[in-house]
């Protein structure tokens, strides 16, 4: 029997979120009635100037203006939790700023490395699935959980490079992280499809092995195929196959609370507000089937 915290997945309808990173109040006005939560990336709403890196006050004010209607989660891209030497302290300063202004339901990051020896890699790469990487990530998750007393989730990223020699399977590595650290997971349905297409990931086997209880959030996005790769450029509507996979995960993950449609700020012009709103309505219908 499911505990109170693990209510039956089939009877629970996850909330719907959309990414929004400011500077487009008319879009915010249109998507707010369609979603339950807004996902914001602290890095994307930041500016670096002579005084350092800080959140742009005009965007915080945008959120502040709709606060009675607004529930927020944060999803970072720049923490670099897996860097061998140190993570990005500037990101934590941004997160401090966001927490000081808003009440966040939870926050999350990518299980990845974006900075090496202080240098920006220009992209994200996954960590080798080794004890060494596991120890490093779990230690840092503990520090984050101590610093912010709301749940912290990690999201798997796509693999474009060959896998490093590993001591764990992809699901086994995530299981170790969640069981040792107590953090939650974001599953990204489109990322899984990318890994299946690009690297031959067996999604069924992955989901069968993965402990789905820590999965709190599910990402849905649409990307492009380029030179024989599926890329996680969040620039399109979700494919039907992505939604079908999302429904399967929703059915199986007992603690999943949120489904987020991710689209890049840079893609809003090409997608258009109408299409984004239509996609949110489509995703809500699909995930509540």
């Amino acid at each position, binding site marked *: 029997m499911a505990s109170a915290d693990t209510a039956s997945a089939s009877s629970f309808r996850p909330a719907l979120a959309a990414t929004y990173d400011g500077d487009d109040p008319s879009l915010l006005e249109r998507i707010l009635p369609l979603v339950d939560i807004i996902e914001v990336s602290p*890095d994307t709403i*930041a*500016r*670096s*100037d*002579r*005084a350092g*890196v800080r959140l742009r006050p005009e965007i915080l004010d945008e959120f502040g203006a709709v606060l009675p209607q607004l529930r927020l989660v944060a999803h970072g891209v*720049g923490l670099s939790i897996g*860097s*061998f*030497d140190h993570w*990005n302290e*500037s990101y934590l300063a941004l997160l401090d700023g966001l927490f000081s202004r808003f009440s966040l339901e939870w926050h999350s990051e990518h299980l990845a*490395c*974006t*900075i*090496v*020896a*202080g*240098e*920006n*890699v*220009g*992209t994200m*790469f996954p*960590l*080798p699935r*080794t004890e*060494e*990487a596991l120890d*490093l990530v779990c230690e840092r998750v503990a520090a984050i959980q101590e610093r912010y007393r709301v749940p912290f989730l990690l999201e798997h990223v796509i*693999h*474009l*490079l*060959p896998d*490093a*020699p590993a001591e764990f399977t992809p699901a086994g590595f995530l299981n170790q992280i969640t069981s040792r650290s107590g953090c939650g997971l974001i599953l990204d349905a489109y990322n899984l499809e990318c890994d299946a297409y*690009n690297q031959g990931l067996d999604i069924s086997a992955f989901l069968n092995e993965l402990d789905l209880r820590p999965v709190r959030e599910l990402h849905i996005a649409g990307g492009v195929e*380029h*030179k*024989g*790769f599926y*890329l996680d450029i969040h620039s399109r509507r979700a494919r039907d196959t992505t939604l079908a996979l999302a429904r399967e995960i929703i059915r199986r993950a007992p603690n999943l609370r949120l489904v987020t449609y991710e689209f890049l700020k*840079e893609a809003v012009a090409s997608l258009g507000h109408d299409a984004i709103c239509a996609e949110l309505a489509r995703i809500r219908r699909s995930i509540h089937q």
Partner: protein
Amino acid sequence: MTQLERYQRGLLDLIKRRGTPPCDPYLESVAGSRGLEMVREIALWWRALQLEAQCHFTCRLLKRLNCFDALVRAYFEGNPTSPFVEEQSRDFLAWLGTHSDDPLIRTTAEFEHALLEVAAGSVEIYEVLWDRHPERVLAALENGAEIPLAEPNCLYRIQIGAQVADTVACTREVRE
């Protein structure tokens, strides 16, 4: 050096085309992979997108001169780029100001760099010398018109600063 450090430093070198070829079997497999080319392309695509958004005039000029992609790549591969867009843009423009052989690229980059520094809170007054009418150059970059030629006997002295009236002031000096 731990295995994690060796891998991450090795991947950074591979993405940025630096250093000697790896002697580690895993890094060798990455070096020969299709995925590495894709990762390099993605990293450069993001840099280009961000720089175009921030360094409007300079990027238009570089595209007009068909050297945008090559210079963005040279900058990315040769420098420790910042994860923050504004900082990266200022660094790129400062780098162009000292690494380009083309005087118009250098001048445009110096000018736009000064604008970004002032916008970022610098209290310095920057001076940039143009060999042709700067406003007409910027207008040409904006509307696609032909870029004016250098004026051999003229110098346009531009000052940029928060203390300067309207932030930018220009004087034209004619040499005898």
